[in-house]
């Protein structure tokens, strides 16, 4: 009996369909989040001039209002992180490729999997819908610091949306952990897992343990806003001349602790799956095993563990004393070491390789120096003394965009180009791929490199006019235009990707089962893998994940399923 349409594509329980649902939704959100930012960049480049095309329909005079700027900024951050990158990296790639890479037929809990997608979807709808309410969307930054967030309109829907997104992430990551622990194919021991699977495992642990405190905090902030409690409001507040009637006795810093207790691990949630993808692509396209596999695994685990005890490096300026700041500075320096180890292992993997420069590889390679810049600029932020100059300036914005945009987003692009043949049975067009890559690389740097300069100059973030009224901004203000133009050009060039994506789906070059001559298990399945089952026969694993160019073998790759006796 054929499945009805809605069972097959909408309320499907097949991890592949759910993965694709996640993927398309998340890409749409990424694009939406980027559009918000392109609007903001207009105001930053040309303060108080009407926004072309859309401005006149939205605001009086077509000029972006300060409160709308704040809304767009908060929603850009929220959407990019919680609705874009995490669902794409964990929801889409995790869902689709973890079961395949461990040689099983589905996730451990298919119904739960479907629930977490729909919970994500509802959360997303609430977030987007908040733009159309009379109050507008949240406008206190993605960090939502009270007391501001306790007072500003639009925040309630943000909190409710977050509760759905948190629920979705929790269910999804429990599912991934159980799948990896329980459903590995016979013979697939821990040290034979592809690194991508390891990163998904660590990531899921971060989500399971770090998200609930934010959920608790969201509940408390909702209580503050709806029931009139004052968890985050101290006594004696006077806002615009009015004495606030709440009883007080709360603490604004409590929110920051609970928020960053999640949000720091969250940034490693953004980067770990990206590293996993990069690892797969690099091993495949250098045609040699990844260097220091074990050290990668241990570094990823250590990174996950440490990420729980560094959060207050976001709070150095809140009046932190000497002992605690020493503690958090030290842990922050320590946590940079596993990143260095992981990146170094990737570099060293290049040495002696036979490097193929296809599109996925280009994106994966670009990830390395871009993450390098982002990571290295984390160091002066992690030392409280130098953070005094840099905190809450564009330097911070530059730091984390280098890790998330030309870092994670590039890695995700690499993953899309790399796994597209598996998902659709067709390859994406290489020429268009390269046309997408090179301008993206240039414009990304055009946007984010100048931010370090503005940051050093001391220009605060979240300024409606980009700092135009401050004198210390005057020397570097012209860079705003450079950045904005780069951003719009970056936006333009993404259409090459979108065209390539949909064109290749229908018309791309047919790809067989294993177009990249890869070793891991997903390439044993047909492309696309069989609905509700993935593989034609049961999988048994006989070797480690990256047996490329083993001397004396006929082919330069040996799939994990190949029995040992065929060695030679």
């Amino acid at each position, binding site marked *: 009996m054929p499945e009805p349409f809605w069972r097959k594509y909408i309320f499907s329980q097949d991890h592949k369909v759910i993965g694709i649902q996640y993927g398309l939704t998340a890409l749409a959100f990424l694009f939406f989040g980027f559009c918000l930012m392109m609007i903001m960049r207009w105001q930053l480049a040309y303060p108080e001039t009407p926004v072309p095309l859309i401005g006149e329909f939205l605001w009086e005079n077509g000029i972006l209002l300060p409160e709308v700027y704040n809304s767009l900024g908060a929603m850009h951050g929220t959407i990019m992180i919680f609705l874009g990158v995490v669902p794409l990296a964990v929801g889409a790639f995790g869902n689709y490729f973890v079961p395949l890479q461990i040689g099983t037929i589905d996730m451990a809990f298919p119904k739960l999997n479907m629930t977490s997608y729909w919970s994500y979807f509802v959360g997303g709808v609430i977030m987007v819908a908040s733009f159309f309410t009379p109050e507008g969307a949240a406008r206190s930054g993605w960090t939502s610091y009270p007391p501001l967030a306790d007072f500003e309109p639009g925040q309630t829907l943000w909190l409710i949306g977050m509760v759905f997104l948190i629920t979705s992430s929790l269910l999804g990551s429990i599912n991934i952990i159980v799948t990896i622990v329980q459903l590995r194919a016979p013979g697939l021991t821990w040290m034979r897992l592809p690194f991508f699977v390891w990163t998904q495992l660590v990531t899921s642990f971060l989500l399971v343990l770090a998200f609930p405190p934010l959920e608790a905090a969201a509940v408390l902030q909702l209580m503050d806003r709806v029931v009139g409690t004052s968890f985050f409001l101290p006594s004696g507040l006077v806002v615009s001349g009015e004495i606030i009637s709440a009883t007080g006795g709360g603490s604004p810093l409590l929110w920051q602790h609970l928020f960053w207790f999640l949000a720091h691990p969250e940034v490693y949630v953004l980067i770990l799956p990206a590293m996993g993808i990069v690892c797969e692509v690099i091993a495949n396209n250098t045609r040699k095993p990844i260097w220091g596999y074990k050290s990668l695994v241990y570094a990823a685990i250590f990174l996950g563990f440490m990420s729980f005890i560094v959060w207050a490096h976001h709070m*150095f300026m809140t009046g932190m004393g000497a002992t605690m700041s020493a503690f958090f500075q030290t842990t922050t320096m320590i946590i940079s070491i596993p990143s260095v180890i992981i990146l170094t292992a990737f570099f060293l993997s290049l040495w002696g390789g036979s490097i193929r*420069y296809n599109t996925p590889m280009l994106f994966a390679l670009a990830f390395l120096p871009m993450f390098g810049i982002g990571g*290295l600029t984390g160091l*002066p932020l992690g030392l409280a003394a130098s953070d005094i100059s840099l905190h809450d300036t564009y330097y911070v914005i530059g730091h984390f965009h280098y890790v998330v945009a030309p870092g994670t987003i590039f890695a995700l692009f690499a993953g899309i180009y790399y796994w597209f043949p598996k998902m659709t049975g067709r390859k994406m067009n290489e020429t268009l791929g390269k046309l997408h890559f090179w301008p993206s690389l240039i414009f990304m740097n055009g946007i984010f490199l100048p931010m370090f300069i503005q940051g050093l100059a001391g220009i605060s973030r979240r300024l409606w006019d980009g700092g135009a009224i401050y004198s210390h901004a005057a020397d570097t203000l012209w860079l705003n235009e450079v950045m904005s133009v780069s951003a719009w050009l970056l936006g333009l060039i993404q259409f090459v990707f979108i065209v390539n994506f949909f064109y290749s789906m229908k018309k791309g070059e047919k790809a067989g089962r294993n177009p990249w001559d890869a070793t891991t298990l997903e390439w044993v399945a047909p492309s696309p893998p069989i609905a509700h089952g993935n593989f034609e026969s049961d999988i048994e694993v006989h070797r480690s994940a990256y047996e490329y160019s083993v001397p004396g073998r006929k082919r330069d790759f040996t799939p994990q399923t190949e029995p040992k006796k065929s060695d030679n």
Partner: protein
Amino acid sequence: MIEWLQALGLPIDASADGFAIDEILGLVHWLMLILFIGWGAFFIYSLIRFRQKRNPVADHDGVKSHFSSVLELAVAIIEMVLLVGFAIPIWASRVNDVPESSEAVHVRMVAQQFAWNIHYPGPDGIFGASSLELIDEEVNPIGLDRSSPGAADDIVTINQLHIPVNERIRIDLSSKDVIHSVNLPEFRVKQDAVPGMVIPMHFEASMTTEEFLETLKGTARDTLPDIEKGFQIACAQLCGLGHYRMKGYLTVHDEAGFQDWLADQAEYLEAEGDDDWDDDDW
């Protein structure tokens, strides 16, 4: 060693404490630059040397030496040196060496949406009490109770911080409504103003406003309409829709100039007295 960062945009340092921060800022950036160039060179070389055309068959083992572990250890050690040698002591001095009132020019600063209220204790050196009920956005934004002990001679200004050069300044920072953050880029000072807390901060100016304006000659900053007011106090923490325009001015006088300014203020207080403060007890 910090010059290249200054060329990139780091403002001139107008404080006595700033050099310590500049030093670590410079050191970290050197470290970053060296690592990036070193790794980058290796990276580019590998990309060219090991392209498929040049090297059709990959070498299964690749790098065999353990030099990378040495390198990683070195990075770790340098980070620890920066941490223990610089960052931790600088921070300790920042939070622990807060001067007593007697050793410094002591000021209260109360942030609000979207202005900086500054409260001087006046000649008697005693801050008057303030109370919530007396707050009036027009005439008494910090709710100073003029009848409380020591309050009569207190000076309150909005967005105007005046300080003497080469003297310790202590500012007790708080906020009336939401979180703000004082940012004085030229003094390497930044501190969040968290409602419900009073956080002390301290620094010392090493340059008067006049000298500072001298250094700006010929730069883009010099052409700004309000540049003659000198240093500016920026807000670094999102505090609502007016965050972008929350700007105050900081004037650094020489010793005599500062005394003159204080005297002016006292005179003004005397003259304007009753009408200025909508407070009958006074």
